[in-house]
């Protein structure tokens, strides 16, 4: 093999692997990313039933109901709109009524959200960022102050206003529950 053809072989190999990686990324991007939606967006029919997405908001007070065989029903609200959620599995330890939650799953034709993953907060003074943003959009959340009105305000307000930097090790593990 001449020097020139060796160089050509090297460049061809680089190009092939890069093209493969790029192709994989592009085709995966179109199929496997999941959008975040607030209950208001769901109510305004942005989401087509059957698409996977993440629903974030607060667990509505008094909405949690346990059914047989480890099924649970609860509602997620951003104080403007509310979405009914169905889930089968163990809920994370920090799942509470009036607290932030992110659920991943699909919207059923009847408007019920069927979740296969439920994520809650990771420690007592933390609100999932998307949830905080969604509530900010509703004017219900202020940076550093937490919830301004409504659900479980005493709990979240006192927690957030203490403004402690929460413990965070490099690999501190959050709460997660998944089916």
């Amino acid at each position: 093999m001449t020097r020139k053809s060796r160089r050509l072989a090297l460049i061809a190999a680089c190009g092939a692997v890069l093209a493969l990686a790029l192709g994989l990324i592009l085709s995966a991007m179109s199929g496997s990313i999941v959008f975040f939606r607030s209950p208001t967006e769901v109510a305004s029919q942005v989401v087509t039933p059957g698409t996977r997405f993440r629903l974030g908001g607060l667990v509505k007070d008094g909405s949690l109901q346990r059914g047989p065989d480890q099924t649970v029903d609860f509602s997620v609200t951003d104080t403007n709109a509310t979405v009914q959620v169905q889930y089968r599995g163990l809920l994370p330890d920090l799942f509470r009524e009036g607290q932030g939650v992110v659920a991943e799953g699909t919207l059923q034709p009847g408007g019920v959200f069927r979740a296969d993953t439920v994520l809650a907060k990771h420690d007592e003074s933390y609100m999932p960022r998307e949830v905080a943003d969604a509530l900010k959009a509703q004017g219900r959340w202020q940076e550093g102050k937490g919830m301004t009105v409504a659900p479980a305000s005493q709990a979240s307000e006192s927690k957030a206003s203490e403004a402690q930097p929460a413990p965070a090790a490099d690999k501190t593990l959050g709460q997660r529950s998944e089916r």
Partner: protein
Amino acid sequence: MLIEVGHFALALALALSLVQAVMPVWAARSGDGALRAVATPAALGAFACILFSFGALTYAHATSDFSVLNVIENSHTTKPFIYKLSGVWGNHEGSMLLWVLILALFGALVAVARDSVPPTLRANTLAVQGLITFVFVLFIITTSNPFTRVNPAPAEGNDLNPLLQDFGLAVHPPLLYIGYVGFSITFAFAIAALIDGRIDAVWARAVRPWTLTAWSFLTLGIALGSYWAYYELGWGGWWFRDPVENASLMPWLAGTALLHSTVVMEKRDALKVWTVLLAILTFSLSLLGTFIVRSGVLTSVHTFATDPTRGVFILAILILFIGGSFTLFAWRAPMLRQGGIFAPISREGALVMNNLFLAAACATVFVGTLYPLLLEMLTAEKISVGPPFFNYTFIPLAIPLLLIVPFGQTLAWKRGDVHAATQRLFAALAVALVVGLAVLALTWGGPMMAPVGIGLGAYLVVGSVMEIVSRARGYGASRTRGAAAIWRRTVGLPRSAWGTALAHAGVGVVVLGIAAQGWATEGLKTLKPGESLASGPYVATLDRVGPRAGENYAETTAFLTVRNAGGDFVGTVETGKRFYPSRKMTVTESGLLTIGASQVYASLGEVLPEGAIGLRLYYKPLVLLIWLGAVVMALGGAVSLTDRRMRVGAPARARPKSLPSDMAAAE
């Protein structure tokens, strides 16, 4: 008082690291050898100061000194002593202090290492290391001071997050940081070489032990973190593909590529510019990881409340080092003398393919991790990139890479022979095919990828064993059949050959473990005492639910007996809900029953008033292989490190082909 001295020591370390950063560069301009030599005591002094500072904080945590804000926020008098110690780095400030402690430790090690590094290269390396230390100590002092006092001191602290009160916290961050930060040395060497405008095999030999050390620790750190997540989070996953985990995977992939490219550079004097680029990339990805974890810009299962000003500071550090080093690279790299180009079918050709696939895999992880951030900045649309993306992009790149591994080991330098290599790998290929097909037949109707993975894992393990066997037997004319000669050759094989074989076999073991998860099963049920739940070949029966007291928590425990399908007793499992009164927080403690390399994993759900519980029961076949394989890989790195060629301080052998001393002694 000690706290103030600790704080002062940190300020002193800031000054010393500045001296360490500036003096060698100044000396290079003035040509003053004495001035250049200042870098060594400065590096040692900075390390001593940071060590003292870290000791002061540890003492405050150990004695529960609640006049220190950091201790108040993360400790409690009832917290077990070991968690008081590990709690030092179980928070942002303390973990950053650990970060710079390891940084300064590596600086001090470079300063005292008795290797054959030319003095200018060493001084420049120390200068770069000094600059990194300076910037990070400045970060701690200005935004994350762990020594802030509180007056009046409260009587009790807020306690450490119960999720962190685990042995995992004691060992995972230090190991991971040694890995992350260890790559700062290869980065410093790369920048020093760019400043010098000269790079050669001596450079590669100097860098290799540091790369091996950092890589081995990073491998262990990632594996421990994965096992910790597996048992702590209660849903039995061993990898989330979460931003923070990706953050540690990216430097590992780049570091693995670096490890292999330095071999090519050392042996063949090629791939110089690429190796320098990889060294810069690897540490840049470590810094990026630190940024992702510390700033909380990406939503992660690991995210806790964070302070935005810190994120801005770390972003500035990131821009300084990554931007600065790439600018320097663009300016100086063309001056580095290019090495030769070589045949595609050769050891170095295979190593280039290894680098290509690792870099491409690293790039897909990078895109998947940062794309959500970019999209949100540009369009305000929030997305999450989950496991499907990473499975879809990473696995197709990993499979060809793994197929090349045994070939790369077998091919000769300069010009390899695919036909001969295939013949030598015949056993591995045959075993892989037979094992894969047998598993496929036995599990027909199950997941299709799992038998493929098992075959691939077997191929890697057998391929590594065959490499050692064929080297012991010898090739061609020197091939022998005498047991004594084979024994002598086996013992006389260089340690790096053993290390390579071990590390590659370790990869195979990991692949076996991952593939076997295709057959993992789970059961979910509401159980009353006496009732059973099956998962895989095992059945768990709830014996009773009762309270159990811990040192600083109260636990409601479910006691279960595990039997096999035939009804024979296998073992017991206990899983509970721990309530920590100090934080009013409940944490699920999963129960594990290890059967060989497999595990039965129980996770407790809601405890209902009538004594019934929600239970999730997983059967995880061969799951321990995932982490054991990683340990074997790290062990391979350690064995390589003891190779004569690699030993820091060992002079380069005059005749590279001479017999190793132990072999000469045996004859």
